[in-house]
């Protein structure tokens, strides 16, 4: 049971989780922005935008994330020549962020869209009646109210994103799942302990996050 007393293993474990946090942080911001934009496109008056939004959601929501990350590496980087950083590891990291945000944005978009549907139509009609444009209606009246309704689903999406970021390991980032894999391979008999530590850290991070979003959603909920 001396797996974690070896400082190298401990370092690897810590840096594995740091990668997870960094991936989650950057992708969460990008996916939120992208997802709201996509949702706006999907409810906009312009058919091409609606089509684009729908295509995005249907393509990326239905493809395994492993494949999306794979395409970020072999499509965007290897074939299209998109280099996001000269450093090999940073480059993998950013490619992973692109893949995670692309995928997660599809889910954010659908959450926001169903959030828009929880806003009573009277609100949008009133906004139009006082002469607001589509963009203004959305920005000033609908989205702020929809935002309260989507807190809970967005929380679930964030948690899923954090867990999904382990998949970036497939293109060579030494994040926590890759570290766990290596450790179990070297210390097979301590497999239970190693899993307990890694799963425990995820549980400690994510269960409170879940409860926090539940609490926040309740607090912000619009009473109608």
């Amino acid at each position: 049971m001396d797996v974690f007393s070896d400082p190298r293993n401990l370092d690897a474990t810590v840096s594995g989780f740091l990668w997870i946090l960094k991936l989650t942080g950057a992708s969460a911001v990008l996916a939120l922005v992208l997802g709201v934009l996509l949702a706006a496109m999907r409810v906009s008056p312009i058919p091409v935008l609606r089509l684009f939004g729908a295509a995005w959601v249907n393509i990326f929501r239905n493809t395994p994330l492993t494949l999306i990350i794979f395409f970020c590496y072999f499509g965007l980087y290897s074939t299209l020549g998109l280099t996001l950083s000269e450093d090999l590891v940073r480059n993998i990291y950013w490619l992973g962020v692109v893949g995670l945000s692309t995928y997660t944005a599809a889910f954010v978009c659908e959450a926001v869209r169903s959030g828009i549907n929880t806003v009573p139509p009277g609100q949008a009609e009133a906004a139009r009646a006082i002469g607001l444009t589509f963009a203004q209606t959305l920005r000033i009246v609908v989205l702020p109210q929809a935002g309260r309704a989507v807190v809970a689903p967005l929380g679930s999406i964030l948690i899923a994103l954090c867990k999904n970021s382990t998949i970036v390991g497939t293109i060579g980032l030494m994040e926590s799942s890759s570290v766990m894999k290596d450790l179990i391979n070297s210390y097979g008999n301590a497999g239970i302990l190693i899993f307990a530590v890694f799963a425990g850290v995820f549980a400690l991070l994510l269960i409170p996050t879940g409860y926090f979003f539940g609490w926040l959603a309740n607090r912000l909920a619009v009473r109608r």
Partner: protein
Amino acid sequence: MRITRVVAVAAAAALSFTVAACGGDDGDSSGGSSASGIIGKAESSKKLIIGVKSDQPGLGLQTGSTYEGFDVEIGKIIAKGLGVEESGIEWKTTTTPNREPFIQQGTVDLVVATYTINDERKQKISFAGPYYVAGQDLLVKADNTDITGPESLAGKKVCSVSGSTPAKRIQTDYPQAQLQLFDAYTKCLPLLENGQVDAVTTDDIILAGYAAQDQYAGKFKVVGKPFSSEPYGIGLKKEDAAGCKKINEILAAAAADGSYKAAWEKTLGKSGAPAPTLDTSKLTHCPA
């Protein structure tokens, strides 16, 4: 409490499934005596499960429903020596990180999968062989001149498979190289072709197999300065000393009667490489 119960139920389901799938395998608690080792299993059931690689051209490649390559031929020789027909062999894909667990857990009886004999692995399993000695080398583009060996890797991007011996060697001995890791070598090759990595590293024999594929013919070359010695062994359960010795006898016999050479000619030898000689004096890794 609940968790263990769920796991136990799940495990029971898994157990019943695998036992049903493996037929007459009578468990793993009694690996000590020769009758219940691999010799005993081969005698009683006339069946063997052999783990091989599925993605290494020339060594172990899954082509549709069958496997082909040098490792596969070696597997057939051993099965024959143990009295198992070719139809009694069940081939199973193993990957670099799952070979020891597969043997320890009894998922496979033997592993013939470019499996380097080393002390770390000997703690968990035992090795018959070696039946071939490879060496870690580098695969570069055919027109590359600046990579001449591992010393010239500083600052270069090198592709390999996570958890493999070659990857670990680069990490510890040549830390200045930037390492790109995937789960399979097949993913390294398009990167090498596009110039996004400067070299692919693993054992020379594996690299030669990839370089000889139609798709990449003439595009790559193996540098040709092996910087390690990788004796390929046949992995089996740690306790099975008798089985290990028996396999060594089979290998020695195969070297003498020409079937070892035939196995080479049929696979890697097709590219013109001369058949290696099997040094029977080195078959000394079995546990006492």
